[in-house]
């Protein structure tokens, strides 16, 4: 390789050459779409809804209006239970802006249960109705020892609901 590979800067040097600062004032407003619109509306009523593919019987939670595998339109809706199993869980010690948090939070992916009597759905470890959420009622040691994997959890609903994923405060470990 040739000699000139660019000019690295120390943090101090950076301050002397950083000339322009920009703070974009762009604000974003997202629409829910069809499937997530219904999903949020049902959360407001304290229920978790998904869609089912009539062809392959996969259950989609969060719902989609199309089957990603069969590429068909989905029109069958299903209420899944607000209980499930922990597929993975971690401890976050930093905030969304990378500041140190006072106490770590447990977050994970929860595989949600189907209502009883629906045996023909295509649900297994490689594809399942699942959401990311906070997990409460678990200790740091539960996560670090990986005891938390496979634990049963139930949604802890807020009394004031607004139609948001945060209408569920967390998924609480069932003792």
């Amino acid at each position, binding site marked *: *390789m*040739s000699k*000139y*590979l*660019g*000019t*690295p*800067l*120390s*943090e101090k*040097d*950076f301050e002397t*050459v950083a000339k322009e*600062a*920009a703070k974009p004032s762009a604000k*974003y407003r*997202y629409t*829910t*779409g069809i499937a*997530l619109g219904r999903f*949020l509306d049902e959360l407001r009523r304290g229920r978790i809804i998904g869609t089912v593919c009539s062809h392959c019987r996969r259950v*989609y*939670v*969060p719902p989609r209006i199309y089957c*990603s595998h069969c590429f068909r339109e989905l029109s069958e809706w299903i209420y899944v239970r607000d209980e499930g199993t922990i*597929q*993975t*869980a*971690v*401890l*976050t*010690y*930093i*905030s*969304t*802006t*990378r*500041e140190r948090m006072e106490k*770590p939070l447990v*977050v*994970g*992916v929860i595989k949600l249960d189907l209502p009883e009597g629906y045996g023909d759905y295509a649900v297994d*470890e*490689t*594809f*399942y*109705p*699942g*959401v*990311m*959420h*906070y997990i409460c009622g678990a200790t*740091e040691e539960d*996560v*670090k020892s*990986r005891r938390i*994997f496979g634990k049963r959890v139930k949604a802890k609903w807020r009394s004031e609901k607004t139609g*948001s*994923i*945060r209408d569920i405060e967390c998924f609480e470990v069932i003792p």
Partner: protein
Amino acid sequence: MKMNTELKQRVAVVGAGLTLFRRRMLDTPKELAWIAAKQALDDAGLTLKDVDAVVIGSAPDAFDGVHLKGEYLSVVAEEKMSSAAKPHPQYVFRYIWDPIVEKPLDPNLIWIFAMEMHRYMNKYNIKKEDIALVSVKNKRNAVDHPSAQLPDPNITVEKVLNSETLVWPVQQLDISPVSDGAAALVLTSEKVARRVTDNPVWIDGVGFTLDTTHWTNRELAFPAYVRRAGEMAYKMAGINNPRREIDVAEVYDPFDYKELHHMEGLGLAGRGEAPRLTKEGVTQRDGDLPINPSGGLLGVGNPIAAAGLMKVAEIYYQLSGKAGKRQVKKPVYTGLAQAWGDLMQAGTVIVMRST
């Protein structure tokens, strides 16, 4: 050697270039791209006039805050992440999360990696100290790389395990850094390659896949997107047994567990077996299957859009015998470079040969 069966004409890499990879560089994105591209052309013994087409890559524009890209040559990739000033470049990643069902939970980027890593550890009962060996190997390999940002000849497993815990099980030294930097390659036809160099490195297989962004519905312990990209590239290159036929590989390692995860996706190790190969020294530079002899993203740095091309450049250096102190011990004829991106979804694989 098996000939590439699907291309009418072979494509060769005849030159490569890299800037320094650093947390902060004075040079602008355009300057970085120019440095890497000029080096690649010099390496090839060619000039700009010889180049017919240019392909440029960079990751989210939000990083460098500049949306005007252009006037680059050949295959160039640059990234200037450090311009994303406050609160931290990783905040830009907030916008990769689903705005309706994920962003309201105030995630940071590391969550998703931690969840995947922990699932992988739990599925195959893998210890953190075995994963840390990847970081140790790569940061030590990087000592011999002139562009490297985080080389560390004295790094140990203990040092990795004692670094700041960010999102358990991910600690600071499990992660590649925020980097500025650029990489470039010069590609030519077979006819031109034979004329301009005695050591062309052929691109014999290319594969790429994009899985869905809906990541909370699937098994995270195995990267299906990488397996499919690998199968596509292997088919094109006529590779039937990657573990036996690939001599050296640069697999994507933005996090240490990702190297193991991706080795398994690529069929370079059985499922859950990559940590054992690492522990046994198989993936060291003098091992039977050297992985990331450059030092990888953990050691050389991770200017996101330029990182994959850095890996292709390393395989070119290795197969053309230009890797200097980094040259792997065994003779190498077939190499693989792999990149990854987005929400556990995108896989790109390139198979290269020196014969």
